[in-house]
């Protein structure tokens, strides 16, 4: 509970209407921030993230099976996961909009059902196009409907432990890729790819109970309740654009942040794709190279949780920590080729461990900064748009690095360029307003569009985005 003597706007203007309704209807369904049910949601996020991204990362096991069975080229088969990933990213704003229009619980449950359905249908595929449509499009749509609502819900349910909660939730991705690789291998060996996909579809359906754990907030009447029987075209457009939070695209802080994150994305994935090949080229054996990547993955998990815990201690502003981690990641990526060119395996391992830790630390913070910039109420839509825009930048990064490798013959230039993109993104962060102040700026003032997003606002309850450092009422 917050002490009364705080000089802060608890009730942003324009919200009094729906606010009263919220208070009137708040009861057992209303959670205290950082409370018990929040941690249950973290578990739900843990499971659903692992079943979405952990699963996506381990789909490579099916690659050889598909190449053999369908007798197609490797490129045609790799389109399956590309379509899946692209669908997940493309439909993220749709997921956010649907949550704003309806209910996070329904959206996540639908997403889980679609993800499972896509894989189950894929097990019956008789040609490659079937796989594109089922494993790619349908499952991708399902995945897109899961990510943004889950993350936004956890953000809304925590204030002081937000980064830790997100870090724990995201740590599942790394852990599950460790566990899923041998599991998928076993499934394919026992049941062939058809049976394995069927069982994976069943596993993906476990996201539905995770979505069920999201408590739907009782909905107040929407402002323009059916006083007019038919909605005019401009009304529909206005509602549509507000659900998607398209107005964010006109705000400078959000644009700056999105640009910075896109720059991160260009460089972030390069080591994932090229580290093994680069280590092999530097003369290390297959096992040594694989160990380096696994070690980086392990420290990635630790970095997510550790940075989450540390950021919540509140000694530094989140935006400063984010800049620090991205600077470090950029630096270590640039150091990666240096350490392997000198021929020292120990140096390569150490730099990779540090890179893994810092990149995991970075991941926890990227989404947590969003509510600081746009306010908790608009986080849902903001995340959806951010996901879409940053992922298109990510598509740019790996072909660019591959291109550089083809020209120069080794990976040094690719890593240097990737690291420099991260440094550039870090500098872009510095252009955010109030970057150089030591205390948090006041949260963005909510405008009249708040009425469309009562759900998030109610989840965050009586505490809108807070100044974490200056006053700690309950610690």
């Amino acid at each position, binding site marked *: 509970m917050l002490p009364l003597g705080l000089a802060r706007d608890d009730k942003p203007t324009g919200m009094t209407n729906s606010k009263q309704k919220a208070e009137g209807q708040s009861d057992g369904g209303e959670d205290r921030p950082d409370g018990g049910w929040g941690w249950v949601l973290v578990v739900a996020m843990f499971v659903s993230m692992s079943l979405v991204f952990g699963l996506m990362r381990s789909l490579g096991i099916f690659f050889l099976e598909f190449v053999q069975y369908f007798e197609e080229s490797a490129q045609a088969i790799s389109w399956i996961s590309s379509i899946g990933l692209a669908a997940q990213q493309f439909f993220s704003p749709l997921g956010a909009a649907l949550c704003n229009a309806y209910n996070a619980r329904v959206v996540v449950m639908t997403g889980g059902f679609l993800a499972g359905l896509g894989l189950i249908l894929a097990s019956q595929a008789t040609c490659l196009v079937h796989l594109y449509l089922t494993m790619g499009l349908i499952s991708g749509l399902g995945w897109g409907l899961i990510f943004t609502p889950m993350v936004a819900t956890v953000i809304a349910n925590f204030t002081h432990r937000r980064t830790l909660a997100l870090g724990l939730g995201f740590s599942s991705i790394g852990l599950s890729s460790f566990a899923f690789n041998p599991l998928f291998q076993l499934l394919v*060996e026992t049941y062939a790819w058809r049976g394995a996909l069927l069982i994976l579809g069943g596993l993906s359906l476990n996201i539905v*109970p995770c979505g069920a754990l999201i408590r739907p907030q009782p909905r107040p009447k929407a402002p323009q309740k059916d006083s007019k029987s038919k909605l005019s075209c401009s009304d529909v457009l206005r509602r549509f654009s507000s659900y998607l939070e398209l107005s964010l695209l006109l705000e400078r802080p959000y644009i700056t942040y999105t640009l910075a994150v896109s720059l991160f994305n260009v460089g972030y994935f390069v080591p994932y794709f090229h580290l093994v090949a680069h280590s092999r080229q530097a003369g290390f054996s297959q096992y040594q190279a694989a160990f380096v990547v696994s070690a980086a993955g392990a420290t990635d998990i630790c970095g997510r949780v550790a940075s989450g815990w540390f950021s919540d201690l509140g000694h530094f502003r989140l935006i400063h920590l984010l800049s620090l981690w991205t600077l470090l990641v950029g630096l270590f990526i640039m150091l990666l080729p240096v350490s392997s060119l000198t021929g020292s395996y120990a140096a390569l391992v150490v730099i990779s461990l540090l890179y893994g830790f810092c990149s995991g630390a970075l991941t926890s913070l990227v989404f947590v900064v969003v509510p600081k910039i746009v306010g908790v109420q608009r986080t849902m839509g903001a995340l959806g748009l951010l996901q879409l825009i940053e992922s298109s930048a990510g598509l740019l990064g790996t072909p660019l690095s591959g291109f550089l490798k083809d020209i120069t013959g080794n990976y040094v230039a690719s890593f240097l360029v990737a690291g420099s993109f991260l440094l550039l993104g870090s500098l872009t962060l510095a252009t955010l307003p109030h970057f150089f102040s030591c205390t948090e700026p006041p949260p963005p003032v909510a405008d009249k569009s708040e009425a469309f997003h009562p759900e998030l606002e109610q989840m965050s309850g009586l505490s809108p985005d807070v100044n974490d450092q200056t006053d700690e009422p309950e610690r």
Partner: protein
Amino acid sequence: MENMPASWKLLLMLVLTASCGRVHAETLDPSPKPPASAPALSANMRKVAVLQSQNSTQNVQLLNPLNLSLECSLTADHDKLPNISAFWSQDGREIPDSRLSATLEDQQYHVRRLFYIAGEEMLGRYSCVFENGVRADFILATPPFGEVRDKPVVSYGGDFVVLPCKMEEAKPKPLSWRWFRGNKTHKEQISEQPQRFQIHSEERKSKLKVINLTHEDAGVYYCGAVYAIGTTMNPVELKVITYQEPLKPFIGILIEVVLLVAVIFLCEKRRSKKNTSKGNEENPDQNNINLQEEEKGAEEGSSTRQRRV
């Protein structure tokens, strides 16, 4: 030399090779010449094993029929006997009339024998065995397959399966590919039948596609890389299962999902009932909304709900 007529050249060559051959025979091999009809007296390939006190094994990769000269050189120990006897064996059985006595030359005893390897039946393990027990093995074989798949290939009844086979770049190209079915002792070659088997072979790869699988199709298949001298076999095991096999764990997971969703909704209903019974009648709509929501939500993954007033 170029001015000599061709016949003189031929005569000179013959004399030279004959004399070389005789020299070899005199110093090392007092026994008669090798049994198979050797087209030429000179060896196409020569393999040497240098022994001291331990046995050695060598793999020899052969593609075509040829004359193979195998040679063993044993370093003399402190005894320095003038003569030591040795014999050659093939696949563990001593080759008749191959026992000979090697004399000491430059601290070593040399034993050499020329073999004419005509076909697959002559491949195997050839050994030179000295009287003190030291031996050198030469394993003559066609190029082996690099990766042998130890896990069976699984597929479903009614479906088809593609069995792949590959000879790596580092190994020589086979002349052709053949597929067999059976066990180690008896293999039947598979011929192409349009409704059952399709074989598609490239230079280094071959694929056997078995269509319309039944349980009788399960077993071991052999892909054979055919060389002039013999065929290398690579076994691949095929297992045929029915759709019910993965269905069992799948149904189990489905039941678990439905149970979880039901439990979650039931707990929520109970908790909201408890709360509304504690609270007063200020939230009758709340109750209705909750119940309606749960009823609808209990259907797994339905489409988005309608807004309620």
